[in-house]
């Protein structure tokens, strides 16, 4: 006998949105949130907004890279030669 799939309300869905975007939910809860979003247009709209916001923050906050002279100094002090990449 299989158990009924978990059902959640708008309040719980709202609380779980960031965890869903971050890939931090268990498969069971992730399924429940996704099912809720498919059936609830207002929650889906919030989800899409939050996802766009987090994408925006990550993009803007990752714009800086270590200065070239700092990289050279570190490589030199460690006796290394290669170039680091841009992560």
């Amino acid at each position: 006998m299989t158990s009924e799939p978990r059902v959640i309300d708008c309040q719980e869905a709202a609380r779980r949105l960031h965890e869903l975007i971050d890939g931090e939910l268990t498969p069971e809860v992730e399924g429940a949130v996704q099912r809720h979003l498919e059936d609830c247009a207002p929650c889906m709209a919030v989800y899409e907004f939050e996802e766009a916001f987090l994408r925006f923050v990550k993009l803007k906050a990752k714009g800086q890279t270590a200065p070239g002279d700092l990289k050279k100094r570190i490589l030199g002090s460690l006796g290394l030669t290669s170039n680091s990449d841009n992560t």
Partner: protein
Amino acid sequence: MASAPDDKKETFEKEALPYLDTVYRVALRLSGDSTQADDLTQETMFKAYRAWHQYKQGTNVRAWLLTILRHTFINEYRREKQRGPTVDVAEFEQFTVFHDIQEVDPAGRFFDQIVDDEVIRAIDQLPPEFRECLVLSDIADLSYAEIADIMKVPVGTVKSRLFRARQALQRVLYDYAVEAGYIKRSVR
């Protein structure tokens, strides 16, 4: 056959060096000062290289480097500089600004008009423990468990701080966008 020191150099270059920019970005946001960030990054990479034999192959090298960075920052740098005022996270409403803007800009396109420096300034206004969670998640891409391990707090605390940090950041950026004329404040 490569000698042991050559092997150390090779594996460090291949596995740790690619995260130099991530270490620098996190150092910059923790310290809020480019000179300190330079020193912190250099010291972190130096300590990591010296302790490379302690790194467990196959584990997350980024999280390992950031653990060294955080220890170094807390022990040697944190008290050196007084940062500017921070926002009171508790003061912010704990829900999305979506409800404010859904009539005029439901996709949040106004965010795209905000420049990088303004986002960085808003992140720097978060209280340290909230800023740290956000930086380790959204700049360093660590999981909640990895952040909890680095900060020595329960995963639930990471989850709650991260959520509140993001909502506060969203609200600060929304207020900035209203002031800059990128979006009209709606009356709820």
